[in-house]
């Protein structure tokens, strides 16, 4: 009985030792992945610094929001642009009144459209207005 117990303990120890070895191996791999990630992040930072001086800034993106190109936008964003065809300029509150959605939803949608280059935004006093930049003046 004693011999059997000894051999079972020895087997368990061996198994544990192999698990520890395996975990150490995984740990080393994770360390190298973390290091690689750090390298990528620092490379990205260097590139962003370089292009923010020499290249076009992301905020300079401009896409013409013509009716046909709206078809490639998600329905939630399309609705916001369509309201701005009508209103010329609007705050998130004004957009929400037209679409019947929450102000926060409109704010998120309009800001996303600004980032995508479809809309512009400007501050007038305490209000932030979203608008479509148009090359021609609207004359009634």
């Amino acid at each position, binding site marked *: 009985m004693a011999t059997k117990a000894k051999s079972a303990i020895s087997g368990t120890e061996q198994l544990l030792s192999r698990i520890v070895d395996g975990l150490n191996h995984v740990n080393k791999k994770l360390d190298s992945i973390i290091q690689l990630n750090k390298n990528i992040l620092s490379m990205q930072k260097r590139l962003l610094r370089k292009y923010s001086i020499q290249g076009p800034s992301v905020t300079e993106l401009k896409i*013409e*929001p*013509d*009716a*046909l*190109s*709206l*078809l490639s936008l998600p*329905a939630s964003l*399309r*609705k916001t642009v*369509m309201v701005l*065809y*009508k209103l*010329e300029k609007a705050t998130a509150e004004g957009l929400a009144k037209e679409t019947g959605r929450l102000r926060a939803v409109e704010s998120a949608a309009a800001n996303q459209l600004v980032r995508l280059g479809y809309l512009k935004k400007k501050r007038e006093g305490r209000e932030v207005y979203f608008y*479509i930049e*148009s*090359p*021609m*003046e*609207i*004359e*009634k």
Partner: protein
Amino acid sequence: MKGKKRRVITIHSSRGGTGKTVIATNLAAIYANKGLNVVLLDLDFRAPSLVAVFSKTIKGPIKHWLGDFLDGRCKAKQALIDVSEGYNFRGKLLVGFANPSIDAIRNLVEKSRAWEVTAVKKLFSLRSTLFNEMGIDCCIFDTSPGVQYTSVNAVVSSDISVIVTTYDSLDMKGVENMLVELYDAFAKKTVVLVNKVFPETRMWSNREQKQLISRMEKVLRHPVIGVIPCFCDVLQAKRTSLLAVEKPNHPFVRNLEEVAEKLEVGVETNLEEKVVGK
């Protein structure tokens, strides 16, 4: 539409030859005859036709075209010509003409996407000019067929679109695609009008008509607002003749009057509930 909601109606089709312009002009005449103040705009810049239709009633050369308004070269009022006198309508009919000259067509076809953005905004601004400043009750856009900038701009800026189609399988397939990919995407109120269905000689009962409408509504998943038979004399009539004025008792006009009534009243009641996007 007096006492009712003023609206902009777009007349559109997936392909040419469905009778879009005949429908648009006669619909405008029906409303003007009822005493409404109507504006009809030729937004088919690639193949303008309203100049030919109203040629007898236009006095002198046209100074400002619809394209001039969209280009910012004139005001909306300057681009609208009152043709009601020539027809003795109870209301007014003002028409915005598209320039049929090759140069003007080429000029408008070559416009940039930035210009199209301004154009759609101008169509939106136009409605407040028409409804709030000029006392207009109804505005009808006669558009170019298929998916083109001018027609899509019209669809986006209108309250309701009427897609005119024949019973031809290609036409129907085109309408089916447009409904899904264009109209539903813009969540626009849309109805279908089937034109030139059967020869006028084939008499059909109300039951037959209802069955056809029901079948088509199942396939298109949008309301079918009317079914107009194919009348030989309508096809053969001169393009300068307005049937709603010259032959007000013609079955084509009677059919169209029902459509006009539904657009005026029905769309705001039971039909509206069936409209996708509502």
